[in-house]
């Protein structure tokens, strides 16, 4: 018995309409599969590349406590990348292919990681603002229509909370310190605020894929909705911290029951996405070197496994 494509399509549509999940071996439209591969891979690459800006501070963390925290956090980012690669592989692409696509620049990662970490305060700001923005993006993705992606997101969201809180606590500690330390925090927030807002992607009227992604239940909210939510969450946090968010247009709008805020520099965003950000070349070069330097380990482990299998077979 063979099922025709329109029948398969209507089965798929019914599953989506019921807010049921699509699972790996289900039939799915090619566009759905491609969109998921692109989005999950980009997300996985972001976690892996995202280890670099903070990883740079591990050897210079000011205390053993901060060093242990930062190590655990960067290890989590690796873990998050692996959960997502695992989800992506259920769509019929291999890990090796995904790595190649990243190294060749054919798949992207979040543009936020192309900004440098110039001071130790950036470790705190990344936890607070960058991971905070990531949480805003990721919580609705726990209900995404593709089962393995949603399950990976649930696991990730549980762990992100630690990331955001350690960052905020780090900044609070610095704010209780000297004037110089407070200035470091403010300078860091000034640099990261706008790139953090860009993490939600272009404005809705310039985001051509959003409507289809929402119809498929892959995305649950528009870019602008999530950006607004993030701004509204961040304002009281900034106040508690004692820093100023670098936006002269930021103010409460009673009528809307939300904050009005300025527009990020979208030309800068496009430049960074195109590969012209401050650290694009460095991030990929570092990733490529790590991949190549690790090749002998992967090969040795394979050779050992093959030899062990042979010896056991002879016994």
């Amino acid at each position, binding site marked *: 018995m063979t099922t025709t494509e329109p029948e398969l399509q209507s089965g798929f549509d019914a599953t989506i309409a019921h807010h049921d999940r699509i699972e790996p071996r289900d039939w799915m439209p090619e566009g759905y599969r491609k969109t998921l591969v692109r989005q999950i891979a980009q997300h996985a690459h972001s976690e892996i590349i995202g280890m670099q800006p903070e990883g740079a501070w591990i050897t210079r963390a000011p205390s053993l406590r901060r060093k242990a925290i930062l190590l655990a956090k960067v290890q989590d980012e690796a873990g998050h990348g692996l959960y997502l690669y695992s989800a992506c592989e259920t769509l019929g692409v291999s890990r090796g292919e995904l790595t190649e696509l990243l190294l060749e620049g054919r798949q992207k990662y979040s543009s936020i990681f192309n900004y440098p970490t110039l001071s130790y305060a950036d470790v705190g700001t990344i936890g607070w603002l960058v991971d905070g923005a990531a949480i805003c993006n990721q919580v609705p993705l726990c209900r995404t229509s593709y089962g393995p992606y949603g399950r990976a997101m649930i696991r990730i969201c549980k762990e992100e909370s630690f990331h955001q809180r350690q960052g905020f606590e780090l900044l609070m500690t610095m704010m209780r310190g000297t004037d110089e330390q407070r200035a470091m925090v403010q300078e860091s927030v000034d640099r990261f605020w706008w790139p953090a807002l860009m993490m939600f992607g272009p404005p809705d009227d310039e985001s051509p894929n959003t409507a289809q992604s929402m119809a498929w239940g892959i995305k649950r909210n528009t870019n602008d909705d999530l950006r607004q939510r993030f701004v509204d969450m961040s304002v009281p946090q900034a106040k508690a911290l004692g820093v100023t968010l670098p936006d002269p247009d930021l103010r409460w709008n009673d009528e809307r029951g939300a904050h009005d805020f300025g527009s990020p520099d979208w030309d800068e965003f496009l430049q960074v996405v195109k590969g012209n950000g401050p650290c694009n070349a460095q991030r990929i070069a570092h990733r490529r070197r790590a991949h190549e330097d690790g090749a002998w380990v992967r090969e040795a482990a394979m050779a050992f*496994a093959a030899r062990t299998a042979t010896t056991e077979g002879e016994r």
Partner: protein
Amino acid sequence: MSDDVRAEWPLYEVFVRGKRGLNHVHVGSLHAPDDEMAVRHARDVYTRRNEGVSIWVVRADAITASSPDEKDPLFAPSGDKVYRHPTFYAIPDNVPHM
């Protein structure tokens, strides 16, 4: 570099028992060169916060699964057997503990 050493590590599916008294539950997959390394990688990837007391790993290519296309015929035999459920039987209200 020859092709066989460049080949990817095989894919393993990972199952974790959250605590004593619970079943192992599928949590995801990973690549590893052999069974022993798969367990070690699974510990690092899936149990960084005491999520488990026991891990199973199995080569993904060793799993046989039902086909999603056949799901109706495969599960049909249980569909019309309502008498397998306790609610099928009407018991008077004055009969206790049943």
